[in-house]
């Protein structure tokens, strides 16, 4: 498993665990206990920083094929993020019509939700392109 695959798996595990923990706490107790746990998503930033460092080092651990896979996964992530963002912006208009209004704290939630969707899609795209972790180079 190379660094890109580790990056993808760590992202999926962190997001999966965070959503599970947050959802469980919300269901068992109250949203006030569950929602703060979403802050655990910040750990994704650490895995991204470690991965970026390894990627920039280059060498045998990250070749042209890995770069191509990474760029394609980035394109896939943004291709899914844009429709998500358009729907998230247009749906309230459709539901509430022109007279409605949305609280300002909803905007960062839309952005955060879009970010999670983009990271999940990117990670899945990386793993799919490497053949679900079976054919990647050993690091």
């Amino acid at each position: 498993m190379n660094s890109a695959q580790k990056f993808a798996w760590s992202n999926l595990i962190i997001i999966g665990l965070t959503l599970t923990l947050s959802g469980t706490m919300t269901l068992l107790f109250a949203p006030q206990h569950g929602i703060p746990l979403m802050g655990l998503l910040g750990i994704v930033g650490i895995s991204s920083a470690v991965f970026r460092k390894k990627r920039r080092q280059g060498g045998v651990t990250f070749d042209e094929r890995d770069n191509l896979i990474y760029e394609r996964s980035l394109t896939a992530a943004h291709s899914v993020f844009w429709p998500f963002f358009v729907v998230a912006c247009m749906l309230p208009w459709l539901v509430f019509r022109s007279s409605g209004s949305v609280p300002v704290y909803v905007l960062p939630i839309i952005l955060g939700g879009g970010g999670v969707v983009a990271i999940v899609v990117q990670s899945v795209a990386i793993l799919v392109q490497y053949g679900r972790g079976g054919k990647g180079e050993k690091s």
Partner: protein
Amino acid sequence: MNKTQKSAWFGLVAGLLCFAVLGHVFVEIFIWKKLPEGFFGLLAYCLLLGGAFIFFRRKQSASEVESDERDDLIKKRAVIASFVSVWILLAGVTVIPRFVIGIKGSIPVWLLAFINLGVLLGVGLVYSVAVLVQYGWGSKDGEK
């Protein structure tokens, strides 16, 4: 000036014009509190620009050269720059209302559509500028 540069210049000019139209509509709706006259005309104008862009991107003649590896690399870098700009622009537009209106404030749903279009246009402009900057604003390379 090659095909990529022409597309980038067109994208830059069309994007700025669309920004002007969007700004005009925004001012009419939110400042003057009325639906702008000829709103659908403006919308048709934007669609026309989009359609013209598609035709403009087509090869003009058989003698026009296809893009080479350097053009592809420039376009790839510009796409990455626009991807990065998506997150910067979105972070800006989601945080600014909180400071302007306050955490307990609310915004009209119309504003979401403007945010959407504004970010889309902004990203398009970043792409065009990134292409032109990499070509050195069209002066040094890619001459026909």
